[in-house]
């Protein structure tokens, strides 16, 4: 299981296009309904990330494919090593001075068209200095791409939950009986709910999860990848709050502890 925390490694975020009423900064809010809207079906969102980030998440998007491209920022890279001051094409050992940074961008393509849920969790190798994550988003012609949440950070990784994992919904729709005997239904938001149990090493995993994540963020919301070891299905990704109460732990073994977690989708 992975939970994206810390999740604020994107220091700035820019989009190649945006509806003036739906700016790209909306995706940095934790409200999934406070969306950014592009103006077409092809758009690039660029996140300037602090060194160390190894994952990016996108929620409430209608993009059907996203290429995640990581690259160090183009420009001049200070060289703190041997040799001369000045500009150097850097074909041998390093020198003092400024070096054009021409590192190869790393790209991974994600087809999320099979998911109607509209979310992405992408892991990638980090850099030792600040770097850029480009999200090249596409959708069917005529679609205006949007997204509710985009975050970059360092996932904390734990053992996958024990099965059984109950999953269901909280329905906010309105359903009222009509005089004819049928129903008037107005579909409103339907939130996913999941609950599960983890068995973790007490030291460090249990304490880290309880005190470095739960106690710090409180109810959330956070990005979760519930089952991550051998499963990449998008259905296991959720942007969620703790449902009702914060997780409860139980020290049933000398070295291991249970953590009971209930989540409700943030909508």
């Amino acid at each position, binding site marked *: 299981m992975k939970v994206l925390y810390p999740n604020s490694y994107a220091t700035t975020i820019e989009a190649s296009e945006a509806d003036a009423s739906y700016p790209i900064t909306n995706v940095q809010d934790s*409200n999934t309904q406070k969306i950014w809207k592009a103006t077409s079906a092809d758009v690039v969102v660029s996140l300037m990330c602090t060194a160390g980030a190894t994952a990016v998440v996108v929620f409430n998007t209608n993009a059907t494919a996203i290429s995640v491209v990581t690259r160090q920022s183009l420009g001049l890279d200070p060289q703190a090593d041997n040799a001369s001051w000045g500009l150097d094409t850097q074909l041998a050992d390093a020198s003092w001075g400024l070096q054009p940074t021409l590192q190869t961008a790393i790209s991974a393509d994600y087809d999320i068209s099979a998911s109607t849920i509209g979310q992405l969790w992408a892991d990638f190798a980090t850099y030792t200095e600040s770097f850029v994550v480009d999200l090249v988003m596409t959708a069917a012609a005529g679609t205006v791409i949007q997204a509710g949440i985009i975050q970059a950070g360092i996932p904390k990784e734990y053992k996958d939950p024990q099965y059984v994992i109950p999953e269901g919904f909280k329905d906010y729709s309105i359903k009222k009986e*009509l005089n004819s005997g049928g129903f008037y239904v107005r579909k409103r938001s339907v939130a996913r709910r999941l609950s599960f149990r983890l068995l973790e090493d007490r030291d460090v995993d249990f304490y880290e999860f309880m005190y470095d994540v739960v106690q710090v963020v409180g109810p959330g919301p956070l990005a979760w990848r519930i089952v991550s070891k051998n499963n990449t299905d998008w259905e296991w990704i959720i942007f969620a709050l703790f449902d009702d109460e914060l997780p409860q732990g139980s020290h049933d073994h000398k070295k291991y502890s249970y953590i009971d977690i209930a989540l409700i989708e943030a909508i």
Partner: protein
Amino acid sequence: MLLVQKTINAVVNKISTETQHLAAPYYNHIFNMDSLNQGIPKAYGGYFRADMGGYSLSPALFADDWPPPVSCAVSMAYSATTEAAAVNFLTGTAHRSQFNRESIDYAIYSPQNSYVLPDSTAFDDTLVNALTWMVNAARMDLTLDSTLARNPSPTVDYTTSGEQLGIDFLSDLTAFFSHMFYISGSTLYLLDMAADNGSRTLAENDYFAPVESPVDYFNNVPCAIAKAGEYSQQSAHLYGDEIAETAFETEQAKIEAALALIITYQNKDRARLAIPFIGDLPSPGEKISWTDTSQVVSTDMWIRARIIQYDFDNDQIIIEGEGAVSET
């Protein structure tokens, strides 16, 4: 969908009970909202006035404007489709009633026409002409639409005693002659209680069942006798209550004719039913007809909308009025 524009420190904030991604976003900063009630004060007419309790808002809306301002301009509209198609149904003022760390509560007040009618103002003309004089730019500064007023218009012969708010005077005056009026924008619409301000027929899947909402067929406590000045009219229900009205005429026959209509509207069959927020909003005085096969015998009912309650939290509009009930 409910679309609210609330002006906070000169900035218009677009908010709703649910986030709406329209041409501009309306964020779900309204936690809950009291019903908006519009209605006439008497079963036989008067001013169709909006009366709204208030709403609770998210503290996040005021994060950059703390503390929440005491008074804000607010407008409310409804649309089933786009922002451009929204129909405004209230423009008024939100006045802060209380706040705590969980919500900010505002009471909402509809605008008041502040014209004060002077003492000893004499009216000796038709009802329509009396209202034409009242809405003049020098007084209430409105435009009169009397398309649905009674024709010929009843006559008024009355001199006021003491100062009073013009809008309250008009409410009493029109009710005496079994008329109602409502104000939309800068127009005052005068309606005969017998006029249909539009009409619609509901199928049984257009309104809610009694188990869900207060669908009622009912009658007021009957009027036994209606009095105005030294004249009166009796009804067939002598066990009922007495109604006393100011006489806005001096001729006995005209007063008795007005009182007879008052008794008629007071004693009419009444109904209240709830419909979902689908299609056009009901208009004041609109005729609404339906068949109810859920009764022991299939029943036809029609009413004219006199009280309209917009219950946003429960996604329903409750409509009440007088009309006629019969077997299908």
